[in-house]
């Protein structure tokens, strides 16, 4: 038996979420001595191959087809299911990205097998896979047993660290030409457009958050000023987007963007489950809130009690003064 992991890759090599999925899949395999295989769509670059070796992949399957010049969810699922059927496979794993969840859902629908999303850890004995997975965007964990085999799993990328294998593997690459029919290719990406949205919220090193306590769209002025000064991205809570003060692409939370900055400065945010699910990977959380009993205060590392409309302008002034001070 082996564990097969779908790896998403681009010009920079395997994506971070897939490295996390590989780490999860390797640990699952190690629980019962199953080696780790990888499936990739398209040509495998040297940097991707290097990552596969570092993460312990012994066999890699490059899925190649002239028809797969752009992402096609059903075709990817078809190829993955073919590979899993081609040799004894205990589990098929993908990153819990939009594509990973979509492809694995199709794989589940195609085979009639169960698919379990956003897993944190798993182990196998005989034909059952025991796992822990996120519910409520990570605010709850479910322990479960999968009774259909192979187990189809996606991996919560904000809950599993990317850890290379103790011993790198020597990876053999095989070409796999899938048998696709017209229906498999009926849904396909036809166009991709790059948006230059400034500092990306998901990748920002510093995020300044604003919640209901900001009070209005205009109330964001000091937060925007501080963000500009620190080169930070602005993130908001669901209350703010529901009120129409800010657009949804700035929403941090379970149904918005997941952030993982060095610092998250949460201003006027009470700390609902929905919001905390989006910032649980922040290294340091600092809250500014008028209410010392707000839930965010018990989930932050540091807090300042007071009105953000007073504190942030004072903070901006102090940072500017420090910047202009000699020495």
């Amino acid at each position, binding site marked *: 038996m082996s564990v097969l992991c779908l790896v998403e890759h681009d010009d920079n090599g395997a994506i971070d979420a897939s490295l996390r999925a590989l780490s999860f899949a390797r640990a699952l395999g190690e629980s019962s001595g199953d080696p780790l295989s990888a499936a990739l769509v398209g040509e495998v670059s040297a940097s991707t191959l290097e990552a596969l070796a570092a993460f312990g992949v012994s066999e890699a399957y490059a899925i190649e087809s002239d028809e797969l010049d752009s992402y096609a969810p059903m075709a990817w699922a078809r190829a993955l299911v073919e590979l899993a059927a081609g040799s004894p496979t205990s589990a098929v794993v993908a990153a819990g990205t939009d594509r990973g969840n979509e492809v694995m*859902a199709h794989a*589940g629908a195609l085979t009639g097998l*169960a*698919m379990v999303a956003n897993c944190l850890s798993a182990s196998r004995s005989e034909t059952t896979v025991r796992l822990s997975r996120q519910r409520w965007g990570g605010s709850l964990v479910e322990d479960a047993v999968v009774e259909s085999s192979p187990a189809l799993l996606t991996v919560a990328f904000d809950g599993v660290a990317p850890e290379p294998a103790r011993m790198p593997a020597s990876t053999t690459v095989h070409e796999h030409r899938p048998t696709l029919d017209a229906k498999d290719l009926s849904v396909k990406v036809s166009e991709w457009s790059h948006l230059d949205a400034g500092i990306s919220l998901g990748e920002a090193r510093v995020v300044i958050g604003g919640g209901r306590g900001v009070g209005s769209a205009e109330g964001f002025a000091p937060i925007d000023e501080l963000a500009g000064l620190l080169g930070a991205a602005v993130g908001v809570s669901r209350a703010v987007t529901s009120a129409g003060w800010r657009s949804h692409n700035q929403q941090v939370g379970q149904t918005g963007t997941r952030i993982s900055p060095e610092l998250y400065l949460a201003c006027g945010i009470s700390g609902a489950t929905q919001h905390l699910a989006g910032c649980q990977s922040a290294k340091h959380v600092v809250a500014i809130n008028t209410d010392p009993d707000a839930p965010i205060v018990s989930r932050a590392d540091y807090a300042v009690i007071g009105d953000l409309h007073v504190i942030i302008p004072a903070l901006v002034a102090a940072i500017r003064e420090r910047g202009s001070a000699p020495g």
Partner: protein
Amino acid sequence: MNVLVCIKRVPDVGARIVLSTDAQEIDTHMLGFAVSPHEECAVEEAVRIVELQGGSVSVLTLGPPDAVEQLRDAAAIGATRLFLLETDGREWGPMATADAIVEAVRRHESQSEPYDLILFGNEAADTGDYQVGVRVARALGRACVTGVKNLEISGATIRARREFGGGDELFELRLPSVVSVKEGINLPRYPSLPGRMRAKKAAVEQTTPEWHEDPVRKQALRVPVTEREKAEILGTGVEAVPALVDLLEQLGVLP
């Protein structure tokens, strides 16, 4: 254009999730309920499509008798046909849920006009299974895209966009099809008073699908342990600013 939206009733958990003593479910005694967020946007999207193109918005939910409240929420902003697939308190897995929806769609379509478009939320807030829409689409033999943040329909063609790699990717599908949407595709409207009055009186067609167990057995739920217990209070009001500047300096985030 006949649009069906599948929604889920979920508890409004607020700031802290409390589990039942047997750790099998959330203790909902003190909680209100709502339509899961992505699905709230799916209902709004369906209403907008039908406002532009004519047709009807149907809404379906699989849930306990009280899930009629969420059907009425959808009716208050413009859904006209309401369907409750009533459950008896057992938890339905994504495979059983998809089967029940497929059966209902086939029944509706044999009795009246087919659905041109079936909308889902990308994933339910509570279980986060990411698959019911895809399973339904495949069983019905219809095309499907998930994670959609923008939808345009002209004639029998749908242009669906979603975020990918710092940009947008576009899919073009032919109707009839299935689309799972994400919050942010629109900003749902507040129901009007006449809308709410109409919703109160709207008829709900109720059926009882047969439950079966998915091959995934839940053992227990738990609240994950967080390292953060209580924040260190740096101070109150502007007096805390010097300590805050020192902290930002330490973290290396100052310009």
